[in-house]
Protein backbone atom coordinates (compact mmCIF):
# COMPACT_ATOMS: atom_id res chain seq x y z
CA UNK A 1 0.00 0.00 0.00
CA UNK A 2 2.69 2.42 1.01
CA UNK A 3 4.55 1.64 -2.16
CA UNK A 4 1.42 2.19 -4.25
CA UNK A 5 0.73 5.52 -2.59
CA UNK A 6 4.31 6.55 -3.09
CA UNK A 7 4.07 5.62 -6.76
CA UNK A 8 0.89 7.63 -7.22
CA UNK A 9 2.39 10.59 -5.45
CA UNK A 10 5.58 10.36 -7.46
CA UNK A 11 3.58 10.24 -10.68
CA UNK A 12 1.61 13.31 -9.68
CA UNK A 13 4.72 15.22 -8.68
CA UNK A 14 6.25 14.17 -11.96
CA UNK A 15 3.28 15.78 -13.63
CA UNK A 16 4.07 18.92 -11.68
CA UNK A 17 7.61 18.92 -12.98
CA UNK A 18 6.57 18.22 -16.54
CA UNK A 19 3.47 20.37 -16.60
CA UNK A 20 5.02 22.96 -18.82
CA UNK A 21 8.25 24.59 -19.79
CA UNK A 22 9.25 27.73 -18.02
CA UNK A 23 8.54 30.74 -20.08
CA UNK A 24 10.04 34.16 -19.75
CA UNK A 25 11.07 36.99 -22.00
CA UNK A 26 14.65 35.75 -22.25
CA UNK A 27 16.41 32.45 -21.98
CA UNK A 28 15.82 30.06 -19.12
CA UNK A 29 19.30 28.66 -19.58
CA UNK A 30 20.80 30.90 -16.92
CA UNK A 31 18.32 29.80 -14.24
CA UNK A 32 18.45 26.80 -11.97
CA UNK A 33 15.01 25.81 -13.15
CA UNK A 34 12.83 24.34 -10.44
CA UNK A 35 15.02 25.48 -7.55
CA UNK A 36 13.40 27.81 -5.06
CA UNK A 37 15.04 30.22 -2.64
CA UNK A 38 13.18 32.28 -0.08
CA UNK A 39 14.93 35.43 1.09
CA UNK A 40 13.85 38.24 3.39
CA UNK A 41 15.66 41.49 2.80
CA UNK A 42 15.52 45.26 2.58
CA UNK A 43 14.77 46.89 -0.75
CA UNK A 44 17.38 49.31 -2.08
CA UNK A 45 15.87 49.92 -5.53
CA UNK A 46 12.84 48.94 -7.59
CA UNK A 47 13.59 49.56 -11.26
CA UNK A 48 10.33 49.43 -13.26
CA UNK A 49 11.64 49.01 -16.79
CA UNK A 50 12.01 47.02 -19.98
CA UNK A 51 13.03 44.40 -20.81
CA UNK A 52 12.75 43.31 -17.18
CA UNK A 53 12.01 45.04 -13.92
CA UNK A 54 14.78 44.72 -11.36
CA UNK A 55 14.50 44.58 -7.58
CA UNK A 56 17.71 45.24 -5.67
CA UNK A 57 17.67 44.26 -2.04
CA UNK A 58 20.08 43.43 0.76
CA UNK A 59 19.79 40.33 2.90
CA UNK A 60 22.07 38.52 5.31
CA UNK A 61 23.21 35.05 4.43
CA UNK A 62 23.57 32.10 6.80
CA UNK A 63 26.87 33.49 8.07
CA UNK A 64 25.47 36.91 8.79
CA UNK A 65 27.18 38.49 5.81
CA UNK A 66 25.19 41.10 3.90
CA UNK A 67 24.43 40.00 0.34
CA UNK A 68 23.36 42.40 -2.40
CA UNK A 69 20.68 40.66 -4.43
CA UNK A 70 19.36 41.57 -7.86
CA UNK A 71 16.14 39.89 -8.92
CA UNK A 72 14.16 40.34 -12.11
CA UNK A 73 10.57 40.15 -13.18
CA UNK A 74 8.99 40.39 -16.60
CA UNK A 75 8.45 43.77 -18.30
CA UNK A 76 5.87 46.17 -16.83
CA UNK A 77 3.04 45.39 -19.28
CA UNK A 78 3.37 41.74 -18.34
CA UNK A 79 3.34 42.45 -14.61
CA UNK A 80 0.50 44.98 -14.42
CA UNK A 81 -2.17 42.32 -15.02
CA UNK A 82 -0.96 40.55 -11.89
CA UNK A 83 -1.21 43.59 -9.66
CA UNK A 84 2.38 44.80 -9.85
CA UNK A 85 3.19 48.47 -10.36
CA UNK A 86 5.93 51.06 -10.22
CA UNK A 87 4.82 51.63 -6.62
CA UNK A 88 4.98 47.98 -5.51
CA UNK A 89 8.25 48.52 -3.63
CA UNK A 90 10.17 51.43 -2.20
CA UNK A 91 13.63 51.63 -0.70
CA UNK A 92 13.60 50.48 2.89
CA UNK A 93 10.73 48.02 2.50
CA UNK A 94 11.36 44.68 4.17
CA UNK A 95 10.05 42.01 1.85
CA UNK A 96 10.12 38.26 1.57
CA UNK A 97 10.82 36.93 -1.89
CA UNK A 98 10.54 33.52 -3.44
CA UNK A 99 13.12 33.34 -6.19
CA UNK A 100 14.33 30.99 -8.86
CA UNK A 101 18.10 31.58 -8.64
CA UNK A 102 20.63 31.55 -11.46
CA UNK A 103 22.80 28.49 -11.90
CA UNK A 104 26.03 30.32 -11.21
CA UNK A 105 25.28 30.69 -7.52
CA UNK A 106 25.42 34.47 -7.61
CA UNK A 107 22.82 36.51 -5.75
CA UNK A 108 20.64 36.77 -8.83
CA UNK A 109 17.28 35.28 -9.59
CA UNK A 110 13.82 35.83 -10.91
CA UNK A 111 10.98 36.65 -8.61
CA UNK A 112 8.17 34.14 -8.37
CA UNK A 113 6.45 35.71 -5.39
CA UNK A 114 6.87 38.74 -3.17
CA UNK A 115 5.34 39.32 0.25
CA UNK A 116 5.15 43.05 0.96
CA UNK A 117 5.45 44.78 4.36
CA UNK A 118 1.65 44.95 4.69
CA UNK A 119 1.33 41.23 4.05
CA UNK A 120 0.14 41.59 0.48
CA UNK A 121 1.41 38.80 -1.76
CA UNK A 122 2.30 39.53 -5.35
CA UNK A 123 2.67 36.57 -7.66
CA UNK A 124 4.67 36.80 -10.86
CA UNK A 125 2.67 34.35 -12.81
CA UNK A 126 -0.45 33.49 -14.68
CA UNK A 127 -2.82 33.59 -11.77
CA UNK A 128 -5.06 36.40 -12.94
CA UNK A 129 -8.73 35.68 -12.56
CA UNK A 130 -10.74 36.21 -15.73
CA UNK A 131 -13.31 38.97 -15.66
CA UNK A 132 -16.84 37.79 -15.26
CA UNK A 133 -15.84 34.79 -13.16
CA UNK A 134 -15.83 34.37 -9.43
CA UNK A 135 -13.25 36.67 -7.92
CA UNK A 136 -12.61 38.51 -11.15
CA UNK A 137 -13.66 41.92 -12.38
CA UNK A 138 -16.89 42.27 -14.35
CA UNK A 139 -16.69 42.28 -18.14
CA UNK A 140 -16.20 45.79 -19.42
CA UNK A 141 -17.95 45.14 -22.65
Amino acid at each position, binding site marked *: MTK*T*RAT*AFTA*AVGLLILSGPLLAHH*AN*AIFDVGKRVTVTGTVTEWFWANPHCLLRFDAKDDKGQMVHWVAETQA*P*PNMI*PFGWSKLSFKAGDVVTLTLEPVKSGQALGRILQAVLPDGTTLVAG*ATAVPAGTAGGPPPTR
Partner: protein
Amino acid sequence: MTHRVVVPALAAVALVALLSPVARGQQGFRRAPGAVYDVDFAGRKSGPAPRRSISGIWEFAKGGAEGIQADGVKAMPSDGKPEHELPFTAEGRAAFMANKPTFGVTLVPSAFTNDPMPGCDPQGFPRITLHNAHTEQILQTTTQVVILYQFNKKWRVIWTDGRALPKNPEVPAWDIKDSPPPESRWWGYSVGRWVDDYTFVGESNGFDDRAWLDNAGRPHSDAMRVVETYHRVDADHLEKTITIDDPKYYTRPWVALDKLPYRLQSASFEIPEQECVPSETAKYDKLFGNPAAGVDSAR
Protein backbone atom coordinates in the same frame (compact mmCIF):
# COMPACT_ATOMS: atom_id res chain seq x y z
CA MET B 1 -8.23 1.32 0.15
CA THR B 2 -8.60 2.97 -3.19
CA HIS B 3 -9.11 6.38 -1.70
CA ARG B 4 -5.88 6.04 0.25
CA VAL B 5 -4.11 5.94 -3.09
CA VAL B 6 -6.26 8.37 -5.01
CA VAL B 7 -6.46 11.12 -2.40
CA PRO B 8 -2.74 11.77 -2.15
CA ALA B 9 -2.47 11.61 -5.90
CA LEU B 10 -5.29 14.12 -6.28
CA ALA B 11 -3.67 16.29 -3.64
CA ALA B 12 -0.49 16.27 -5.63
CA VAL B 13 -2.38 17.08 -8.82
CA ALA B 14 -4.07 19.95 -6.98
CA LEU B 15 -0.59 21.08 -6.05
CA VAL B 16 0.21 21.00 -9.74
CA ALA B 17 -2.76 23.21 -10.50
CA LEU B 18 -1.86 25.56 -7.68
CA LEU B 19 1.82 25.91 -8.41
CA SER B 20 2.06 25.50 -12.15
CA PRO B 21 1.24 29.10 -13.00
CA VAL B 22 3.98 30.22 -10.65
CA ALA B 23 6.42 27.61 -11.85
CA ARG B 24 5.62 28.45 -15.42
CA GLY B 25 6.25 32.16 -15.02
CA GLN B 26 4.27 34.13 -17.57
CA GLN B 27 2.79 31.18 -19.39
CA GLY B 28 -0.94 30.70 -19.37
CA PHE B 29 -3.82 33.13 -19.30
CA ARG B 30 -2.81 36.76 -19.06
CA ARG B 31 -5.16 39.72 -18.97
CA ALA B 32 -4.15 43.11 -20.30
CA PRO B 33 -5.64 45.72 -17.97
CA GLY B 34 -9.19 46.45 -19.06
CA ALA B 35 -9.18 43.90 -21.87
CA VAL B 36 -11.87 41.31 -22.47
CA TYR B 37 -11.40 37.77 -23.74
CA ASP B 38 -13.52 34.91 -24.99
CA VAL B 39 -13.51 33.41 -21.51
CA ASP B 40 -15.54 36.43 -20.36
CA PHE B 41 -18.33 35.64 -22.83
CA ALA B 42 -18.66 31.88 -22.52
CA GLY B 43 -21.89 30.66 -24.09
CA ARG B 44 -22.69 34.01 -25.69
CA LYS B 45 -22.85 34.17 -29.46
CA SER B 46 -21.35 37.07 -31.38
CA GLY B 47 -23.28 39.04 -33.97
CA PRO B 48 -22.62 38.89 -37.70
CA ALA B 49 -19.40 40.21 -39.16
CA PRO B 50 -19.60 43.70 -40.66
CA ARG B 51 -18.82 43.88 -44.35
CA ARG B 52 -15.31 44.94 -45.36
CA SER B 53 -14.30 46.06 -41.90
CA ILE B 54 -11.37 45.00 -39.77
CA SER B 55 -11.21 48.31 -37.91
CA GLY B 56 -10.99 48.31 -34.17
CA ILE B 57 -8.79 47.53 -31.22
CA TRP B 58 -7.87 43.88 -31.18
CA GLU B 59 -6.51 41.71 -28.39
CA PHE B 60 -5.74 38.00 -28.45
CA ALA B 61 -9.06 36.21 -27.91
CA LYS B 62 -7.57 33.52 -25.69
CA GLY B 63 -5.49 35.80 -23.46
CA GLY B 64 -2.63 38.25 -23.69
CA ALA B 65 0.07 35.59 -23.48
CA GLU B 66 -0.89 34.24 -26.91
CA GLY B 67 1.29 36.77 -28.67
CA ILE B 68 4.52 36.37 -26.71
CA GLN B 69 5.82 33.46 -28.81
CA ALA B 70 9.02 33.25 -26.78
CA ASP B 71 10.12 30.00 -28.45
CA GLY B 72 9.55 31.27 -31.97
CA VAL B 73 6.60 31.78 -34.25
CA LYS B 74 3.40 30.29 -32.89
CA ALA B 75 2.72 27.84 -35.71
CA MET B 76 6.36 26.69 -35.97
CA PRO B 77 8.13 27.06 -32.62
CA SER B 78 11.82 26.24 -32.40
CA ASP B 79 11.37 23.23 -30.13
CA GLY B 80 13.29 20.49 -31.93
CA LYS B 81 10.18 18.67 -33.09
CA PRO B 82 10.55 17.39 -36.66
CA GLU B 83 7.22 18.88 -37.68
CA HIS B 84 8.51 22.32 -36.69
CA GLU B 85 11.73 22.13 -38.68
CA LEU B 86 11.68 24.99 -41.18
CA PRO B 87 12.46 24.27 -44.85
CA PHE B 88 15.79 26.08 -44.89
CA THR B 89 17.88 26.46 -47.98
CA ALA B 90 21.61 26.07 -47.38
CA GLU B 91 21.93 29.85 -47.29
CA GLY B 92 18.99 30.11 -44.92
CA ARG B 93 20.39 27.50 -42.54
CA ALA B 94 23.74 29.29 -42.49
CA ALA B 95 21.95 32.53 -41.63
CA PHE B 96 20.00 30.75 -38.88
CA MET B 97 23.14 29.27 -37.36
CA ALA B 98 24.83 32.68 -37.41
CA ASN B 99 22.05 34.10 -35.28
CA LYS B 100 22.40 33.68 -31.50
CA PRO B 101 18.93 33.83 -29.97
CA THR B 102 18.05 33.54 -26.30
CA PHE B 103 15.28 31.03 -26.98
CA GLY B 104 14.78 28.00 -29.19
CA VAL B 105 17.04 25.12 -30.10
CA THR B 106 20.08 27.34 -30.68
CA LEU B 107 19.69 29.49 -27.58
CA VAL B 108 22.58 31.19 -25.82
CA PRO B 109 22.68 33.20 -22.56
CA SER B 110 21.41 36.72 -23.06
CA ALA B 111 24.92 38.15 -22.60
CA PHE B 112 26.03 36.37 -25.79
CA THR B 113 23.06 37.05 -28.04
CA ASN B 114 23.26 38.95 -31.29
CA ASP B 115 19.51 39.42 -31.40
CA PRO B 116 18.97 42.97 -32.62
CA MET B 117 15.87 43.46 -30.51
CA PRO B 118 17.27 43.65 -26.95
CA GLY B 119 19.44 46.57 -28.01
CA CYS B 120 16.26 48.25 -29.21
CA ASP B 121 16.94 47.88 -32.93
CA PRO B 122 13.64 47.77 -34.80
CA GLN B 123 11.67 44.53 -34.63
CA GLY B 124 10.36 45.27 -38.10
CA PHE B 125 7.57 43.39 -39.80
CA PRO B 126 6.61 40.57 -39.46
CA ARG B 127 8.49 40.08 -36.15
CA ILE B 128 6.23 42.69 -34.55
CA THR B 129 3.45 40.09 -34.88
CA LEU B 130 5.61 37.00 -34.39
CA HIS B 131 7.30 37.84 -31.09
CA ASN B 132 6.25 39.92 -28.10
CA ALA B 133 3.05 40.79 -29.93
CA HIS B 134 0.39 42.68 -28.03
CA THR B 135 -2.78 44.61 -28.65
CA GLU B 136 -3.19 46.10 -32.12
CA GLN B 137 -5.44 48.82 -33.46
CA ILE B 138 -6.50 48.76 -37.10
CA LEU B 139 -7.66 51.91 -38.88
CA GLN B 140 -9.14 51.98 -42.38
CA THR B 141 -9.15 54.97 -44.70
CA THR B 142 -10.12 55.14 -48.34
CA THR B 143 -6.52 54.43 -49.39
CA GLN B 144 -4.91 52.67 -46.44
CA VAL B 145 -5.21 50.06 -43.78
CA VAL B 146 -3.10 51.31 -40.88
CA ILE B 147 -2.03 49.02 -38.06
CA LEU B 148 -0.89 50.45 -34.73
CA TYR B 149 1.25 48.17 -32.60
CA GLN B 150 1.71 48.42 -28.85
CA PHE B 151 5.40 47.55 -28.67
CA ASN B 152 7.44 50.72 -29.21
CA LYS B 153 4.30 52.43 -30.53
CA LYS B 154 5.03 51.35 -34.10
CA TRP B 155 2.68 51.56 -37.05
CA ARG B 156 2.45 50.25 -40.59
CA VAL B 157 0.57 51.33 -43.68
CA ILE B 158 -0.92 48.77 -46.05
CA TRP B 159 -1.85 50.67 -49.20
CA THR B 160 -5.24 49.91 -50.70
CA ASP B 161 -5.14 52.53 -53.46
CA GLY B 162 -4.37 50.00 -56.16
CA ARG B 163 -0.61 50.45 -56.32
CA ALA B 164 1.56 47.41 -56.92
CA LEU B 165 4.36 46.09 -54.73
CA PRO B 166 7.89 47.09 -55.76
CA LYS B 167 8.95 44.85 -58.62
CA ASN B 168 12.49 44.36 -57.39
CA PRO B 169 12.40 43.42 -53.69
CA GLU B 170 16.17 43.81 -53.40
CA VAL B 171 16.06 47.41 -54.64
CA PRO B 172 12.53 48.31 -53.61
CA ALA B 173 10.69 51.53 -54.34
CA TRP B 174 7.17 52.58 -55.20
CA ASP B 175 6.60 53.00 -58.91
CA ILE B 176 5.07 56.40 -58.25
CA LYS B 177 6.24 59.84 -59.31
CA ASP B 178 8.19 61.65 -56.56
CA SER B 179 8.20 58.63 -54.30
CA PRO B 180 11.20 58.16 -51.95
CA PRO B 181 14.45 56.71 -53.33
CA PRO B 182 14.90 52.93 -53.52
CA GLU B 183 15.66 51.42 -50.13
CA SER B 184 14.84 48.39 -48.08
CA ARG B 185 12.80 48.96 -44.96
CA TRP B 186 12.51 47.40 -41.53
CA TRP B 187 8.76 47.40 -42.13
CA GLY B 188 8.77 46.63 -45.85
CA TYR B 189 6.40 47.90 -48.50
CA SER B 190 2.80 46.74 -48.17
CA VAL B 191 -0.30 46.65 -50.34
CA GLY B 192 -3.64 45.01 -49.66
CA ARG B 193 -7.02 44.16 -51.05
CA TRP B 194 -10.31 42.56 -50.08
CA VAL B 195 -10.62 39.08 -51.60
CA ASP B 196 -14.19 38.84 -50.32
CA ASP B 197 -16.37 40.93 -48.01
CA TYR B 198 -14.80 39.41 -44.91
CA THR B 199 -11.21 38.67 -45.91
CA PHE B 200 -8.47 41.27 -46.33
CA VAL B 201 -5.08 40.17 -47.66
CA GLY B 202 -1.91 42.23 -47.38
CA GLU B 203 1.31 41.49 -49.24
CA SER B 204 4.69 42.96 -48.37
CA ASN B 205 8.26 42.93 -49.66
CA GLY B 206 11.36 45.10 -49.71
CA PHE B 207 12.60 44.14 -46.25
CA ASP B 208 15.83 44.96 -44.46
CA ASP B 209 17.40 41.58 -43.74
CA ARG B 210 19.00 42.70 -40.47
CA ALA B 211 15.69 42.02 -38.73
CA TRP B 212 14.84 38.52 -37.48
CA LEU B 213 11.56 36.73 -38.00
CA ASP B 214 11.17 35.65 -34.41
CA ASN B 215 12.68 35.26 -30.96
CA ALA B 216 14.33 31.96 -31.89
CA GLY B 217 16.64 33.53 -34.45
CA ARG B 218 14.83 32.49 -37.61
CA PRO B 219 16.21 34.72 -40.35
CA HIS B 220 14.75 36.31 -43.45
CA SER B 221 16.46 37.64 -46.53
CA ASP B 222 15.84 40.78 -48.55
CA ALA B 223 13.86 38.60 -50.96
CA MET B 224 11.16 37.79 -48.39
CA ARG B 225 7.54 38.29 -49.29
CA VAL B 226 4.96 38.18 -46.50
CA VAL B 227 1.28 37.46 -46.96
CA GLU B 228 -0.96 38.49 -44.06
CA THR B 229 -4.60 37.46 -44.13
CA TYR B 230 -7.27 38.98 -41.88
CA HIS B 231 -10.56 37.11 -41.79
CA ARG B 232 -13.46 38.78 -40.00
CA VAL B 233 -15.21 35.80 -38.46
CA ASP B 234 -18.04 37.67 -36.74
CA ALA B 235 -18.72 40.96 -34.95
CA ASP B 236 -16.20 40.21 -32.21
CA HIS B 237 -13.53 38.10 -33.87
CA LEU B 238 -10.72 38.45 -36.37
CA GLU B 239 -8.32 35.71 -37.44
CA LYS B 240 -4.80 36.49 -38.61
CA THR B 241 -2.65 34.23 -40.77
CA ILE B 242 0.92 35.05 -41.76
CA THR B 243 2.79 33.20 -44.50
CA ILE B 244 6.52 33.58 -45.15
CA ASP B 245 7.68 33.25 -48.75
CA ASP B 246 11.44 33.71 -48.91
CA PRO B 247 13.04 31.69 -51.73
CA LYS B 248 16.57 32.67 -50.71
CA TYR B 249 16.26 31.23 -47.21
CA TYR B 250 13.37 28.74 -47.43
CA THR B 251 12.62 26.12 -50.07
CA ARG B 252 8.88 26.74 -49.90
CA PRO B 253 6.41 29.16 -48.29
CA TRP B 254 5.46 28.31 -44.71
CA VAL B 255 2.83 29.47 -42.26
CA ALA B 256 4.05 31.33 -39.19
CA LEU B 257 0.65 32.29 -37.74
CA ASP B 258 -2.32 30.09 -38.52
CA LYS B 259 -5.70 31.74 -38.01
CA LEU B 260 -4.70 33.28 -34.68
CA PRO B 261 -7.94 34.62 -33.16
CA TYR B 262 -8.30 38.17 -31.89
CA ARG B 263 -11.22 39.68 -29.98
CA LEU B 264 -12.57 43.18 -30.53
CA GLN B 265 -12.11 45.49 -27.54
CA SER B 266 -14.13 48.45 -26.37
CA ALA B 267 -13.61 51.58 -28.46
CA SER B 268 -12.44 53.27 -25.27
CA PHE B 269 -9.77 50.67 -24.54
CA GLU B 270 -6.37 52.32 -24.24
CA ILE B 271 -3.39 50.38 -25.53
CA PRO B 272 -0.64 50.41 -22.88
CA GLU B 273 2.77 51.93 -23.47
CA GLN B 274 5.68 49.55 -23.88
CA GLU B 275 9.00 50.98 -25.04
CA CYS B 276 12.39 49.44 -25.58
CA VAL B 277 14.68 51.95 -23.88
CA PRO B 278 18.44 51.59 -24.53
CA SER B 279 19.43 53.01 -21.15
CA GLU B 280 17.10 50.59 -19.35
CA THR B 281 18.46 47.69 -21.37
CA ALA B 282 22.03 48.72 -20.55
CA LYS B 283 21.23 48.83 -16.84
CA TYR B 284 19.58 45.42 -17.02
CA ASP B 285 22.62 43.95 -18.77
CA LYS B 286 25.00 45.46 -16.24
CA LEU B 287 23.07 44.41 -13.14
CA PHE B 288 21.64 41.09 -14.23
CA GLY B 289 22.12 39.80 -17.78
CA ASN B 290 25.91 39.92 -17.88
CA PRO B 291 26.69 38.67 -14.37
CA ALA B 292 24.13 35.89 -14.74
CA ALA B 293 26.00 34.72 -17.82
CA GLY B 294 29.39 35.00 -16.14
CA VAL B 295 30.38 38.11 -18.08
CA ASP B 296 32.33 40.58 -16.01
CA SER B 297 30.14 43.49 -15.08
CA ALA B 298 30.72 45.85 -12.20
CA ARG B 299 27.79 45.99 -9.83
